[in-house]
């Protein structure tokens, strides 16, 4: 229960931002940051809780974006329906890639490489296939009505992406406390030991991949509604795979708030650096690299993990009475 209260407080605090902030630049920054956070939340289910490090979450992001784009541009489907279809298509691609990779028993770096390869294959296909607009990409018509899932106001877009992030937070929290989540974490920690305890590791990983893909695909669908344009490099490019994995790793891998904290931190640093150094190309990537090195060196469980460790240390120090006898008996 406490955990859901924490989610409610964080979401409520973020929801108040448009009341005070009217700058479109700032709101645009926050919308993009939350969109990256959502993609990272998807990655975190599979990578953070399941220990399966995907380097190809662009496959799901792009599939979500392209699915809703094609449905709206070529078939006149409603934006909300396109959104749902995009999530479903992303989940299906997750099921296919996961089914192939996990059945083949690919683990750790082999799994990472295979996911990267799938995303690259999709990027190349999207850059030549007529249905994805080949090299030109797809533009969907400006139609600023809520029924079409487009909004005049940045603030509304902000609240929509915040709601999606909130749903992902709740899904993650529910997962953490469920049997599925406990088994998923067990698979991350030691797959053989988990199997010996009755865990069907392949099925658990596949389930996590599908949920993970669906959430990241939702971020892709949102991208489409917000920018109204997609091409192969934007949809399936490695940039989004990297953002989706960096944000939870920096924020706190395998924690509920990890991706959100990571996205806010990384994006703020990137923007801050741009303000100071001007729009030097690649500067934000250098910042990511430096932050990543520091986090992995000094806080391997990310910012949230480090804070949790400090909190636990402090409460143990001041709150709990010391029990030297019990410690000695088992220490």
């Amino acid at each position, binding site marked *: 229960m406490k955990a859901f209260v924490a989610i409610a407080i964080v979401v409520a605090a973020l929801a108040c931002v448009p009341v005070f902030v009217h700058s479109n630049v700032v709101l645009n920054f926050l919308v993009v940051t939350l969109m990256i956070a959502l993609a990272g939340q998807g990655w975190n289910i599979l990578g953070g809780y399941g220990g399966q490090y995907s380097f190809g979450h662009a496959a799901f992001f792009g599939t979500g974006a392209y699915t809703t784009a094609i449905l709206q541009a070529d078939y006149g489907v409603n934006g909300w329906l396109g959104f749902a279809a995009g999530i479903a298509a992303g989940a299906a691609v997750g099921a296919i890639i996961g089914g192939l990779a996990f059945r083949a028993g690919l683990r750790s770096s082999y799994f990472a490489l295979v996911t990267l390869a799938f995303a690259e294959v999709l990027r190349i296909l999207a850059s030549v296939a007529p249905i994805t607009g080949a090299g030109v990409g797809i533009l969907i018509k400006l139609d600023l009505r809520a029924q079409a899932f487009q909004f005049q106001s940045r603030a509304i877009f902000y609240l929509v992406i915040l709601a999606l992030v909130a749903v992902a937070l709740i899904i993650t929290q529910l997962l953490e406390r*469920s049997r599925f989540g*406990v088994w998923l*974490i067990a698979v991350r920690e*030691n797959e053989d030991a988990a*199997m*010996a305890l009755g*865990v*069907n*590791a392949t099925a658990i990983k596949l389930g996590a991949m599908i949920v993970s893909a669906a959430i990241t695909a939702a971020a892709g669908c949102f991208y489409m509604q917000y920018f109204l344009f997609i091409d192969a490099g934007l949809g399936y490019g490695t940039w989004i795979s990297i953002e989706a994995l960096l944000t939870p790793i920096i924020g706190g891998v395998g924690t509920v708030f990890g991706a959100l904290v990571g996205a806010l931190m990384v994006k703020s640093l990137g923007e801050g650096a741009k303000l100071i150094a001007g729009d030097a190309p690649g500067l934000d990537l250098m910042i990511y690299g430096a932050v990543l090195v520091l986090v992995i060196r000094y806080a391997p469980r990310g910012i949230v993990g480090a804070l949790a460790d400090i909190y636990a240390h402090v409460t143990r120090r001041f709150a709990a009475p010391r029990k030297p006898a019990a410690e000695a008996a*088992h220490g």
Partner: protein
Amino acid sequence: MAEPLLVVENVSRRFGGLLAVNAASLTAPAARITALIGPNGAGKTTLFAVISGFLKPSAGRVRYAGEDVTGEPPHLLARRGIARTFQIVQPFAGLTVRDNILVGAHLRHRARPAALAVAEGIGREVGLGDVLDRPAHTLTVAGRKRLELARVLATAPKLLLLDEVLAGLNPSEIRDFVPVIRAFCARGIAIVMIEHVMQAVMSLAAHVYVLAEGRVIAEGTPGQVAADPAVVEAYLGRGAAAQLRSAHGH
């Protein structure tokens, strides 16, 4: 008489040119402790891996509770009630002791409160009650062995395969551990244990199989096995055999 809970029939397992297990047969009845002893490299752990589904046998059959379960994957065998520990303990290092046991408890209890209650009860039963909130990687070797046992017990097994749970423990820790194993046997669980600590085997096991170079070279009560010249030659050595015999009044 009904068939014993576990029946292993002529199981062989080949790794390339190496025949690790060669037509080994054994049975393990409920509520009994059966020991599997033999020199290093005899194929004991390989045989466990075949019984628990981690390896498929090259030949032979494994029957459990009257059914042929040969080649079933480990998670289905665990659901049937076959649990194994690992020779090299495999805790979920980043999780607390409670969460480690919880993974096993969830096999029979979907709901979190019920599974947590089972996990905590078993944690206390094996003597980990005071350290339930500690991360597993902070436990001592003895603590990790207890945790390994607690985790599999949480799956409510009918057949428990213990792979050297006493190895690495000092004599006083072994003395603490033996009654725990005995208590679970008394509850009706069939236990098969691979063990090098012969004193424990002599005092715990009702029946002993001796494996050497993949074959069962002897079986019988601990006393019979310790007196068998083939076992003395292949595994025990003359001095240890004499000691064990005198300790058991032969």
